């Protein structure tokens, strides 16, 4: 009983203490937040200070920055940063800010670093003062600090610190933290940009990071590498580091972040065009033709085919297969670029990218992506439309679509149209041509309908009938488009003329219908539309045996003066056309023209129009009438000339989409462009892609693993797991896949021995820093800053040469053994 009591009490106490602890933590968190509120209030007060531009502000900020109280300094820094981020100049505070690089507060320090990378170029002398302290941060325990330090050190674009930088980079490419190594990769790219003299060494560094065991590091290294090589150096040199890692990259691709994935895909696409054999297509036609991947697939559109890829390209494409599930749209776009460049449409279908892109356009949260996806689709359709043909319903117009999206969708629909879906597509286009509230969309829909013609004769007739019916309903630009469509359809009929003379009847009936529309008083046609119709009637009057047009002219002649300018002009053209036809006719008969013309009604009408036009208010009309007068009224030679240019068949209008030259498509086309395939006979052997060694960085205690390339086999455990002892310091784990590597590693080892000698100072300081941070370090970091900077730099160069040789030997040895 007692025991139970005790137990109970104990339990009670325990629970009390627990709840107390909980409430304590709550209280403390409240305190914490209260403190934060106070700080925030202070911050906003100081930022308000930044807002009001008083003459005393700089002094205030300087005072804060020079304060001994950490919080004041932080506030001062915040003030400056917020000035800078509002587009004002932060330069006046440079000296005060640089001082604070030694601050123990990491936030202050990081802000100073950001500030320095921005302004160091302008004040190189003062910036140099900070180099020491930044370098010191390289030995910080926190990887984030080390990473920041490398980052900002390389961000200070002062050429004189390059030698120090190189030394630092050499250390940090072997840092145990992937974060630091990744930062180093970008730092290398930065240094490369400032200073070309050490490019060889920098390339070596980046090559090493490309071989890193950590995917994050490799990914960042790829980004940096692409940046370095984007300036267009010699080709073979550029690709050298990629060969050996091609296969490994393909393997670890899913582990990269999305930026690296996209960069990588783009890089390897270019690589494949340059170093890999074109895929072969085994076409299943009567002869079982085998061809290389063609540029244009329309020739083989009707055949099924098998594809055989180069082994490495197959590997690459296989690695892309899984990335189709990426939630980053731009990665998908990169994949598309790769597939468009490397594979036939069949592969794109296998990847199911059609539905992926269609999902992208129905996913509504990012209108820009939608637009770009549609652009991509129209680019792809121009190459091969079978990928998207099953998805045509996804391009129906929603009411929430922007005008650009709607126009693109209409364009795509008209490109996808074929026998099987024309019924539905035309229905959709018609709906939009009539019901859409935006006139730009309606006229685009009209154009799209025009582009749909040519699928079949029956459909052409249907479209034409619909067009004629809707002239009465349409207005504005849509009506113009409608008339253009009609003209286009007539011209198609004209081309079919040879087939049979029924087409002329058709044209005649169309023209007759148009003339009826002209006569319809109640319709109130716009002048542009009227003019267009008159033009069409004149243009095709020969096809109607010259029966309809004279009547039209006669009817309009009466009220000629009341017609608007465009109509008067077209009437003149119409009369000229008719007259020139008449002249030709007379000429064929061979009768004397002047006599005949006296009585001919067309001639009379023409002369009448000429007279009327002589006094027209429009310059154009007057000018044209004079021209016709001379051409047609002054003898046979001239009239022949006139009939030449009046009766010449005009080219059919081309229905280019309005949006095809938009900025989006320009940007897209630029991006999708790839380099040409390399000459297939000069491809290097596949053996250059033999896997290169992977550099494993141990995750044990030592800060810097030496850069020498002593290597171990994959999977072998590091022997020195104890960590920090200085004897294990140089122990390095480099993975290589082949035991034959023994030879190479020796060679490498020779190269690296020299390196060791050069950098021993550095490494010594690193080592000691393991035990004690404070003093030795500053001495060490002061070291490169002193006068022998130049010599250090020099020796680095020569050492890199040695390394280069040795690796060359290694390769030789390897290929010998292999």
């Amino acid at each position, binding site marked *: 009983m007692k025991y139970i009591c005790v137990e109970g009490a104990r339990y009670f106490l325990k629970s009390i203490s627990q709840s107390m602890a909980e409430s304590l933590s709550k209280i403390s968190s409240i305190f914490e937040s209260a403190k934060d509120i106070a700080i925030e209030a202070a911050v906003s007060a100081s930022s308000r200070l930044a807002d009001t531009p008083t003459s005393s502000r700089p002094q205030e900020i300087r005072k804060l920055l020079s304060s001994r109280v950490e919080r004041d300094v932080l506030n001062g820094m915040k003030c400056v940063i917020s000035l800078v981020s509002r587009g004002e100049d932060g330069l006046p505070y440079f000296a005060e800010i640089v001082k604070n690089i030694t601050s123990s507060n990491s936030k202050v320090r990081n802000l100073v670093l950001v500030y320095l990378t921005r*302004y160091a170029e302008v004040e190189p002398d003062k910036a140099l003062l900070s180099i020491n302290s930044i370098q010191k941060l390289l030995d910080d325990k926190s990887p*984030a600090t080390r990473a920041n330090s490398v980052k900002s050190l390389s961000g200070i674009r002062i050429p004189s610190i390059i030698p120090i930088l190189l030394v630092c980079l050499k250390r940090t490419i072997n840092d145990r*933290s992937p974060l630091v190594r990744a930062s180093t990769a970008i730092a290398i790219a930065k240094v490369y940009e400032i200073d070309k003299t050490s490019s060889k060494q920098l390339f070596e560094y980046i090559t090493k990071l490309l071989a890193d065991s950590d995917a994050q590091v490799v990914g960042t290294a790829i980004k940096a590498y692409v940046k370095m090589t984007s300036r267009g150096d010699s080709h073979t040199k550029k690709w050298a580091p990629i060969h050996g890692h091609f296969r490994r990259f393909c393997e670890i691709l899913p582990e990269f972040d999305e930026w690296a994935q996209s960069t990588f895909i783009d890089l390897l696409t270019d690589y494949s065009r340059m170093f890999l054999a074109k895929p072969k297509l085994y076409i299943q036609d009567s002869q079982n033709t085998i061809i290389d991947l063609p540029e244009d697939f329309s020739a083989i559109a009707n055949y099924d085919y098998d594809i055989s890829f180069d082994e490495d390209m197959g590997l690459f494409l296989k690695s892309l297969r899984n990335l189709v599930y990426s939630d980053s749209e*731009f990665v998908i776009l990169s994949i598309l670029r790769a597939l468009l460049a490397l594979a036939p449409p069949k592969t794109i279908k296998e990847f199911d990218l059609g539905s992926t892109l269609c999902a992208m356009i129905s996913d509504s949260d990012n209108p820009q992506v939608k637009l770009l996806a549609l652009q991509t689709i129209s680019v792809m359709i121009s190459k091969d439309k079978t990928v998207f043909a099953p998805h045509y319903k996804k391009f129906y117009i929603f009411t929430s679509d922007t005008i650009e999206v709607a126009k693109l969708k209409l364009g795509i629909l008209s490109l996808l149209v074929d026998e099987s879906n024309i019924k539905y597509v035309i229905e959709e286009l018609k709906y939009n041509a009539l019901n859409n*509230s935006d006139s730009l969309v309606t006229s685009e829909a009209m154009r799209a309908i025009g582009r749909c013609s040519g699928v079949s004769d029956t459909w052409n007739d249907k479209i034409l009938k619909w067009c004629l019916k809707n002239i009465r309903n349409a207005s504005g630009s849509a009506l113009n488009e409608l008339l253009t469509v009609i003209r286009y359809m007539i011209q198609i009929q004209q081309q079919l003329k040879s087939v049979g003379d029924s087409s002329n009847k058709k044209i005649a009936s169309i023209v007759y219908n148009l003339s009826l529309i002209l006569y319809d008083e109640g319709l109130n046609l716009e002048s542009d539309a009227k003019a267009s119709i008159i033009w069409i009637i004149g243009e095709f009057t020969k096809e109607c045996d010259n029966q309809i047009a004279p009547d039209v002219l006669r009817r309009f002649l009466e009220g000629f003066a009341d017609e608007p300018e465009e109509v008067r002009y077209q009437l003149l053209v119409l009369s000229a056309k008719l007259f020139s036809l008449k002249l030709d006719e007379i000429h064929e008969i061979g009768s004397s023209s002047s006599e005949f013309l006296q009585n001919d009604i067309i001639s009379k009408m023409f002369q009448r129009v000429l007279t009327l036009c002589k006094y027209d208010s429009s310059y154009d009309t007057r000018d044209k009438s004079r021209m016709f007068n001379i051409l047609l009224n002054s003898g046979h030679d001239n009239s022949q000339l006139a009939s030449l240019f009046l009766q010449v068949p005009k080219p059919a209008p081309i229905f280019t989409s309005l949006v095809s030259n938009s900025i989006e498509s320009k940007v897209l086309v630029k991006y999708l462009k790839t380099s040409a395939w390399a000459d297939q006979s000069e491809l290097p052997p596949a053996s250059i892609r033999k896997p290169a060694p992977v550099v494993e960085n141990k995750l044990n205690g030592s800060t810097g693993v030496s850069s020498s390339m002593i290597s171990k086999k994959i999977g072998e455990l590091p022997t020195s797991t104890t960590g920090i002892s200085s004897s294990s310091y140089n122990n390095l784990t480099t993975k290589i896949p082949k035991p034959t590597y023994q030879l190479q590693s020796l060679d490498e080892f020779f190269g690296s021995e020299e390196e060791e000698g050069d950098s021993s100072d550095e490494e010594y300081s690193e080592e000691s820093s393991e035990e004690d941070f404070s003093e030795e370090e500053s001495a060490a970091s002061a070291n490169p800053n002193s006068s022998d900077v130049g010599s250090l730099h020099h020796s680095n160069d020569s050492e890199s040469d040695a390394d280069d040789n040795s690796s060359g030997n290694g390769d030789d040895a390897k290929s010998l053994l292999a």
Partner: protein
Amino acid sequence: MFEAVYIADTNNNLVYEYLINLSSPSFKSLISVVSSLSADPNNIIEINKNYSVYKYTTSNIIIYTLNVANINPMLPFHFILQLIDVIHDYFGYPLAIPKIESNDDTLTLLISQMIDDGIPNITDFNQLRDIVPFSSFLSKLLGKTSQMTTNAIKKSTSTSISNLPRSQDLNTSSIPWRRSNVRHTNNEMYVDVVETVDVIFKSVAKSLGSAQQVKQFDSAFYSTNSSSTSSYSKSLVPVSSTINGQVLFTSRLTGVPCLQMILNVAGLNNINPKFHRCVKLDTWKQNNGTLSFIPPDGKFTLIKYSIDLDQFSRKDQLSMLGSVSVDYNYGLGLHKNEFEVKLQLPVIKGVTKIENLSIEINANYSNLITIKSSRLTHGDFSYKSNGKAEWNLRSVTPGVNPILYGSIITGDMETDSETFDSERTTQDKTFTKPVLKPAFIKLSYTNKGSLPSGIKVDSLKIVSAKGLSETVKPYKGVKYLTKTGDFIIRS
């Protein structure tokens, strides 16, 4: 790659700018060029041969990035969205200018990590939280409390305590998308499955026999006037329909948990999934619907999917178009200008009410005067402008069948009706009179508790958890939400 990031308010006043280096142009110099080059609202603006500006507009801010010209054109937009995610994560919802202004120091540190030397670098917010510490605790707290009030879920104690100084020895997390040393006093995970229905219906004339019957049945109940209605009966056919879904996941779990979620995909074999990078693809491929992943800490989109309903039979398609079905007729009445919208809200398990239910009626006649309602059973009806009217039912419990009977009034109508009496008898006149109909009607609603596709979360469990003790049973919550995107019925 990137040269600068600018954040401006909707009037293009600079709020924040981040320049990669001194040579990048300031916003002041850029905006004049940008505004001179783009009269229309373009989102990609070419500055010159080498540079272009990408623009992303949200409700209250505009974000610009300056990029070199020959990059992947979707990349800057992805970056901007990531940036918005990070701002949300650090400074709380919603995106607001004062928040950016008062935190511009932290934002500078963040962007300096996100872009290094113009290269997009570390953009994942979990990873960033390891590198850039929280500075503004208050805004986070405020964000939390507002969430608390809305969700009515106790979260005050779940405030993450991981921003305490970390033990220095630990390396940064080996899982790039999960920050290291996550600790929560309340362990919880929430799954929100949201589906959006996009559909275009076309109305076609019904075969008369069945139509008559349906009509008679209806008119018995609601005594819809005029017997002529039946002859104009229409049925709706979906011509294009898609369901877009996403699974939003919120994880507040200590340590490094490995989760398994089984998504019952309801027999759909291709839902075009897009996964967050944490999802193991192999498991999904082996077992359609099984997601195995180590979640990032916080809120993220686990999977996005899209179901193309056009591949199904008409019947299946109709069954997957959500919890409200519509019956729609037009061209009714003597003037052929009346229309009728009937909604059917069947009782579905798990759905207690349909929210934000409204119907937009659009007519574009140049001489349109108004759209008016002559009869409605629920909600209220109002004519907005530009040929738009709205029938707003707000929240409705399933099981009812609201009806709207309305008419379109145009200028011609007015003059016609004066002379109408005399001409009513002439059959020809009524025949030639054009049918006045809405161009389309648009339905919108949301409802909780069910998904049109039938997808369900069958189970969610922690397979293994490093750092999370066995005894801890995290709170799990699953929510389903159906939304309409473009739910359009064309006349």
